[in-house]
C-alpha cells in the first residue's frame, strides 16, 4: 500500500482520496465507459443523474490506485478498467442504475472510421435536397439517388453499411446529411460493485415484458385458485357465484329439472336435439 501512496503529487493524492471516500459513502461503485460522448451531451447526462448518482471522471491510473489502496474485493473493479473509464457512485441498486444509464443512451451521427453497431438502411423516397452535387455524392456512397420532379429522390431502400462494418468518410458524410444517426452514445456500465457483489452488465439487463407477463400469470393463477378451490374473496366472489349458478343450471338442464329459471334452457336443448333429428329425417 505504501508503495502507491508515497510518490503521488498532492492533486493526484486528492483525487484518490475522493474516490476512496465516495466508494465508502455509496452502496454502489460502478465503472462506466464514456468513450465518444461529446462534452455537450456529457453535461446533459450529468444533469440527468444529479440527485441519484455522482459521476467522477478521472484518470484510469488514479482509479486503479484508489481501489488498490482500499484492497479487498473492491479491488476487483480494476480488472474491468478499459478505454475511457469513469466512476459512478450511487445508492440505487445495480439493476436500476443499469436501466437509468440505458435511458441516457442516444443516437448520434457516425464519425469516419467508426464501426457501425447495426445495419444502416437508407429508406426510399424524396429527400429535402434540391438538385445539385449531392446526387453524385449519394451515388458515390452507393445510394441510388436520382432527380425526379425537381427533387433529389432515393429510388429504393438499401442497406448501405452492415453491422460491424467500418463507416468510411464519404459514407459518414452522406449519412449525416441524410440525418441518419447509427451510433449509440451514452455511459455504458462495465461493472458494478454493490454491497460486496459484482454485477456484470449482461445480468443487469431486465426484460420488463417478462416481469409483466409473470405478473399477469400470477394474478390469473390466484384468480383460478380462488374460484376453483372456492375461496371467496372480494375480487372473486362474483366469479364464484357465477360458477355455482352455471353448475346448478347445467345440472338442471341435464336432469330436466323443471324449474322456472331454466325451463327455457331445457326447451332450447330439446329443440336443438329435435332439429338434429329432423335434419336426418329430411335427408333420408
Amino acid at each position, binding site marked *: 500500500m505504501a508503495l502507491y501512496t508515497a510518490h503521488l503529487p498532492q492533486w493526484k493524492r486528492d483525487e484518490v482520496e475522493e474516490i476512496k471516500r465516495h466508494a465508502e459513502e455509496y452502496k454502489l461503485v460502478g465503472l462506466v465507459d464514456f468513450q465518444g460522448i461529446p462534452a455537450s451531451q456529457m453535461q446533459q447526462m450529468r444533469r440527468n443523474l444529479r440527485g441519484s448518482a455522482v459521476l467522477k471522471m478521472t484518470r484510469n491510473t488514479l482509479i486503479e490506485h484508489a481501489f488498490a489502496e482500499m484492497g479487498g474485493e473492491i479491488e476487483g473493479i480494476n480488472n474491468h478498467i478499459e478505454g475511457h473509464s469513469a466512476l459512478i457512485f450511487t445508492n440505487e441498486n445495480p439493476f436500476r442504475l443499469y436501466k437509468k444509464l440505458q435511458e441516457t443512451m442516444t443516437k448520434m451521427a457516425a464519425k469516419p472510421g467508426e464501426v457501425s453497431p447495426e445495419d444502416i438502411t437508407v429508406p426510399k423516397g424524396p429527400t429535402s435536397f434540391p438538385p445539385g452535387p449531392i446526387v453524385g455524392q449519394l451515388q458515390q456512397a452507393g445510394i441510388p439517388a436520382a432527380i425526379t420532379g425537381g427533387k433529389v429522390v432515393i429510388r429504393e431502400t438499401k442497406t448501405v453499411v452492415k453491422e460491424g462494418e467500418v463507416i468510411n468518410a464519404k459514407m459518414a458524410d452522406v449519412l449525416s446529411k441524410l440525418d441518419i444517426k447509427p451510433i449509440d452514445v451514452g455511459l455504458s456500465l462495465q461493472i458494478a460493485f454493490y454491497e460486496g457483489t459484482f454485477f456484470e452488465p449482461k445480468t443487469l439487463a431486465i426484460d420488463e415484458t417478462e416481469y409483466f407477463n409473470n405478473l399477469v400469470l400470477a394474478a390469473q393463477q390466484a384468480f383460478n385458485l380462488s374460484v376453483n378451490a372456492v375461496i371467496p374473496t372480494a375480487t372473486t366472489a362474483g366469479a364464484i357465484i357465477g360458477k355455482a349458478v352455471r353448475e346448478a343450471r347445467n345440472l338442471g338442464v341435464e336432469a*330436466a*329439472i*323443471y*324449474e*322456472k329459471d331454466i*325451463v*327455457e334452457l*331445457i*326447451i*332450447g*336443448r*330439446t*329443440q*336443438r*336435439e*329435435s*332439429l338434429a333429428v329432423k335434419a336426418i329425417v329430411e335427408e333420408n
Partner: protein
Amino acid sequence: MEYIYAALILHNAGKDVTEEAVTSVLSAAGIAVNDSRVKALIAALDGVDIEDAIAKSAVAAVAAAPAA
C-alpha cells in the same frame, strides 16, 4: 326430457299445455307418469313464451353452427 317434448307437441298443435294433456300424451307413449314432474313442468312453464324460447334456441344453433 319426455315431459318437455309432450309440452312441445301440445304447443305445436295449438293445444293448452295442462297437467291432464301432458299426462295423456306421456301415457299414450306408454310412460309411467310422475305427477310431481308434470306439476313442476306446468308451474315452470307458467308465464313462459314457448314460441320465444324455441326461436331463441334457433339463434343459438346458428351461433354454434360454425363450430359444428
